[in-house]
């Protein structure tokens, strides 16, 4: 659905995006993660046909973003990180304006407007003036505008910034609904947990370079170089460490406040054997578990080296 090949953007001497390539299938939810100034907005704007790449190509739904921007615009919904809303209009007038801007037939518009207002839970505000909405409602209205022409691809630049925790959860629910509708979504953020539960792919970008990208599970394996096991024993920790260090697949073992942490590169078979070995050696195992590696850890690991 989205294909980016060696995309490059230069601003007067500054390389904002360097050699970025990415392929997304229909229905993918791609979390685009990076610190401030990494190049997320620049990349998204190039996909939204608002910025011309210095070099490289990008295709959305098979259409060249640079050669046929008009055709691409009908297929994408773009929500900028910072946006204003014409506040001298009522909510439905605002949506009607964009329905016209996307060339929706006039007799269809009332139905479509009601649909997107229902989806974004703003139907009760239909006749209010836009300036009477709260920040969270404006965010949802902007999303409603982004959905008005039923685009296949959504480009959402930090859609949850400026929202309170409750509104964040609400907007996350909305993304899950969009995911269920089969949209392909690129969503940028610097806050990782925000993306973790509904992205199936992530990419981490820093200083214009995509450091890693791919399936969430693959990246976890790739970055952590295996798993971390947490083992709790009834005493005998020192003996256990020396035993573990000699075992297959164990990269390192250490004692961490009352339990053992083992960096492990073996498969599940090997992991089970490791547990068996401990018990057979007479050690009393209280618990044996795999530590959850979340996106946050990956992010810290990947970006750490380069930030300093």
């Amino acid at each position: 659905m989205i294909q980016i090949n060696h995309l490059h953007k230069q601003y007067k001497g500054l390389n904002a995006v360097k050699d970025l390539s990415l392929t997304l299938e229909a229905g993918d939810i791609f979390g685009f993660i990076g610190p401030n100034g990494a190049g997320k907005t620049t990349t998204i704007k190039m996909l939204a046909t608002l910025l011309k790449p210095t070099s490289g190509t990008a295709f959305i739904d098979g259409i060249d973003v640079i050669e046929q921007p008009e055709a691409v615009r009908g297929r994408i919904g773009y929500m900028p990180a910072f946006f204003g809303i014409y506040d001298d209009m009522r909510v439905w007038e605002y949506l009607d304006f964009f329905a016209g801007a996307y060339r929706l037939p006039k007799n269809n518009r009332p139905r479509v407007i009601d649909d997107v207002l229902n989806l974004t839970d703003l139907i009760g505000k239909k006749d209010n003036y836009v300036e009477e909405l709260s920040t969270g409602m404006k965010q949802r209205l902007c999303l409603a505008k982004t959905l008005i022409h039923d685009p296949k691809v959504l480009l959402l630049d930090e859609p949850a910034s400026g929202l309170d925790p409750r509104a964040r959860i609400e907007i996350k629910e909305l993304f899950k609904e969009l995911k269920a509708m089969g949209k392909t979504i690129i969503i940028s953020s610097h806050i990782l947990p925000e993306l973790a539960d509904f992205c199936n792919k992530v990419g981490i970008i820093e200083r214009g370079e995509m450091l890693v990208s791919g399936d969430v599970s693959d990246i976890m394996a790739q970055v952590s170089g295996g798993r971390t096991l947490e083992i709790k024993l009834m005493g005998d920790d020192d003996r256990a460490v020396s035993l573990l260090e000699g075992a297959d697949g164990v990269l390192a073992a250490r004692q961490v406040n009352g339990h053992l942490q083992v960096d492990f590169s073996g498969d599940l078979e090997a992991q089970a054997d490791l547990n068996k070995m401990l018990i057979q050696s007479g050690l009393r195992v209280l618990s044996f578990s795999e530590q959850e590696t979340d996106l946050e850890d990956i992010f810290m690991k990947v970006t750490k080296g380069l930030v300093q």
Partner: protein
Amino acid sequence: MGIFSNNPVLEREMRGRLRLRRRGAGKSFFWVAIILTAVIFYFYARGLAGLFGGPRQDAREFWPLLSYGLLVIIVLLAPALTATAITTEREQQTWDTLTSTRLTGSEILLGKWLARQTIPAVLIFLACPYLVGCVIRGQMDPLLLPATLAFLVITSLFYGALGLLCSYQAKRTVAATATALTCMAFFCLGTSLIASVVMILNGPRDPAVLWLNPFYALSALQNLLNHSYQMEQNTSIVWFYFLVVPTLTAAMLLFMLRRYRQAVRG
């Protein structure tokens, strides 16, 4: 879909121009507005009646007052109205949202340009009965009416395009408005200043730089149709103005459309 029909930008901007009050203003405001309109209409009608019923000389003297008055308002209003068109969208961060839709550059730019001519157009329209009255009562050349109207319209479109260009190029509304009004002042006052310097140095003949001055051109047009002096030169000035000003207008608009396409590739 086109620039005129079903153009959401044009519709939105027109509505914005014509909507006198939005909300918040209560019933009292509504009544004040009605009474005010009635009073204005009364004086408007009385003035018109006075013009038709009054002496011929009054009508003749009123004509320049009205036509130059309209010109002053237009050269001030037209650029000021369009100079805010694009910079406010940039400042309110609505420009990206607008340009990422399927609207074309001409729909956006020409839509804004034309919609923001609404107020000058309404003023010209309201002045029309008076202009007609002056021509009929003052027994002036009937050609004076369409010629002056055409003159005002192309002037308004020109200064509108000038303001829009400033708005397109500038980052801030303040800068755009200041630049637009400075350019306007150059055409309306600067040209006269340059001309007087040139005349001091080179003798009494009017230098060509004055031909771009709308007030000078309007006086040439009216002198021509009143059959007063310097017929040949006035003819050239009028031709020059009617050819060069629309050409410059078109050039500015084309320049913007080209820039827009290069930037956004729409």
